[in-house]
């Protein structure tokens, strides 16, 4: 039997409340009468079926079905094996994946093969186990955030070798699930934290206490980077943040900057560049002028450019992609993808990720359209964009209907259709030919995520790489 003790006071309250609410349904009944009624209500076939040696007959039938399936699979294997690969003929560099499933840590090849458990996170109802993980740039180590359990979400950072051997554990204060990002030289990890007592089921940004911790493979290098005193919070406990570890704190490829999303007193939320040597911080607003809200950014491989996704003021329902010079803020490219939608529709660029050679961007766009007085649809489309040709190649898309609850917060009214790509989950393979991304399993984000891949050149269907993935990181050997 699998009885579960409530974790905290609210769960205990929920138990009492739900039982009280359903009290009127809990009428006494005569169990024997109910049993006899149920037994008598079955069809004649069902009753006779129990008397016949039905198990033997069913076994024979199943053997026939399985045999037919086996023959079909064998025939398909011969056929597929003799066909040319759908990928390019040259050997592809798809990298290696580290991912979290059910709170445990796994690695796999970039094509999803060779899955291997490397560390257990001991997940239970009192702890998430492992939450996110990231490869070091040299692929020799993995930084993995683990929830060690308790009434509050209590993260710790495990630094492991590539085969899962623990090097050291960095304890962190109870608070939000932190994001991690490796320094370009693979020696240390930046962790944006919000140390606070966060009840396990509170999924909101915490407006109290912030920190930027740098932890090294060698503990003697550990330090805390000073942040401006008016900053209030740098991280969030939302599970969506955990899908990609670098969503909230990212090291620039040249090692000079760590970009963070922060809430500051008097200004609300914004994106900042923090000097890795602790010499100061600058808001990304200084580099942009016509952007309402910077959600995230991506560095070009040479650190010279930054792609800024967001709600650009002059775009309306179109999707605008802008890259800027990281030093001066000068625009280096700007492109508009016209969306065919009605008035009142609103388009936003959720992410724009540079390809490994810096020449293209994987662009995830969002379009919100009113469906009725109380519902709207959200469509997400993944594009590959070439700034040289200014051409957008649509790769895949998905849609979900949303409706606000009594508090005005929007929730899906049903499963998503198509491929509803998770924000922040798009990654290029090292060879720049394929994009990896997460979509909700069966269209329902609450059911978990599937990691899929698609040809970045377009014109192909996507493939399933790994089912039931909570978060992942794709790395490539230098």
């Amino acid at each position: 039997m699998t009885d579960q003790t409530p974790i905290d006071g609210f769960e205990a309250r929920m138990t009492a409340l739900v039982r009280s609410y359903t009290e009127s349904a809990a009428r006494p009944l005569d169990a024997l009468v109910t049993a006899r009624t149920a037994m008598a209500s079955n069809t004649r076939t069902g009753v006779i079926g129990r008397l016949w040696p039905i198990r033997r007959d069913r076994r024979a039938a199943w053997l026939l079905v399985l045999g037919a399936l086996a023959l079909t699979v064998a025939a398909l294997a011969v056929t597929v094996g003799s066909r040319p690969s759908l990928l390019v003929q040259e050997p592809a560099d798809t990298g290696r994946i580290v991912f979290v499933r059910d709170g445990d840590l796994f690695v796999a090849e970039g094509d999803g093969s060779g899955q291997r458990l490397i560390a257990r996170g001991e997940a239970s109802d009192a702890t998430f186990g492992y939450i996110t993980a990231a490869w070091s740039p040299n692929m020799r180590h993995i930084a993995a955030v683990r929830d060690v359990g308790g009434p509050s979400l209590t993260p710790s950072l495990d630094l492991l070798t590539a085969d899962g051997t623990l090097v050291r554990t960095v304890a962190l204060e109870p608070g939000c699930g932190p994001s991690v990002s490796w320094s370009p030289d693979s020696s240390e990890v930046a962790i944006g934290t919000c140390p606070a007592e966060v009840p396990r089921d509170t999924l909101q940004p915490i407006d109290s206490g912030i920190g930027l911790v740098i932890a090294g493979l060698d503990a003697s290098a550990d330090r805390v980077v000073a942040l401006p005193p008016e900053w209030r919070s740098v991280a969030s406990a939302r599970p969506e943040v955990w899908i990609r570890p670098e969503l909230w704190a990212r090291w620039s490829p040249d090692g000079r900057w760590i970009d963070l999303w922060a809430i500051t007193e008097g200004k609300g939320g914004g994106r900042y560049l923090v000097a890795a040597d602790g010499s100061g911080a600058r808001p990304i607003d200084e580099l942009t002028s016509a952007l309402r809200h910077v959600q995230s950014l991506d560095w070009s491989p040479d650190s010279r450019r930054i792609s800024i996704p967001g709600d650009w003021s002059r775009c309306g329902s179109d999707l605008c992609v802008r890259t800027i010079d990281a030093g001066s803020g000068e625009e280096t490219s700007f492109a508009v993808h016209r969306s065919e939608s009605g008035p009142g529709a609103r388009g936003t660029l959720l992410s724009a990720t540079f390809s490994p050679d810096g020449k293209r961007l994987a662009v995830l766009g969002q379009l919100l359209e009113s469906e009725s007085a109380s519902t709207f649809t959200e469509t997400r489309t993944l594009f590959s964009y070439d700034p040289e040709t200014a051409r957008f190649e649509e790769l895949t898309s998905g849609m979900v209907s949303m409706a606000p609850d009594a508090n005005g917060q929007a929730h899906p009214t049903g499963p998503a259709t198509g491929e509803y790509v998770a924000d922040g989950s798009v990654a290029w393979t090292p060879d720049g030919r394929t994009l990896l991304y997460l979509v909700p399993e069966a269209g329902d984000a609450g059911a978990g995520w599937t990691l899929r891949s698609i040809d970045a050149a377009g014109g192909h269907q996507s493939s399933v790489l790994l089912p039931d993935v909570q978060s992942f990181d794709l790395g490539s050997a230098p």
Partner: protein
Amino acid sequence: MIVGSAVITSETAGAVIEQAAAGDELAFARIVAAYHEDMARIAYLVSGDLDVAADAEQAAWAIAWRRLGTLRDPARLKPWLMSVAANEARQIMRSQRRRTVREISVDGPARSSDPDRAALIDLANALDDLDHRDRTLIGLRYIAGLDSEAIGRELGLSASGVRVRLHRLLARLRKELGDD
């Protein structure tokens, strides 16, 4: 009428299931006695309608009797029965396209452990905003007391998927119940 012990432990479940599947009505009645109340509660939570809950429970027992012999793992008896009841409630609601006005009983014996009536109203309103699957999840967790693994097995979700979904639901319910 109480038929033998209404408590079925992990040690006795296998034997009781086997006897019931073989046609022993007293053994089946023991199963009914042990689980009918929670099944009725879950069916009511999912449907919001007492009549539908009663119909769903009756239908669930008929299914349970038919398929009891296919249950290989005795530990799954309780989770399985609960999800059958929830599923039947959902099916009835869907086929009847019923829209329910949730009623909150103000009668009945006063209990020192009863939450106040306002909280019950808030819960009823919050449940109205949830789909059947989320209500089933709430029922399996807070009525049947199942953990994420057991819930996941019955709903076809991963344990981690259940945890994430539950966390989102609780965050929402905290707000609606004024507990944030």
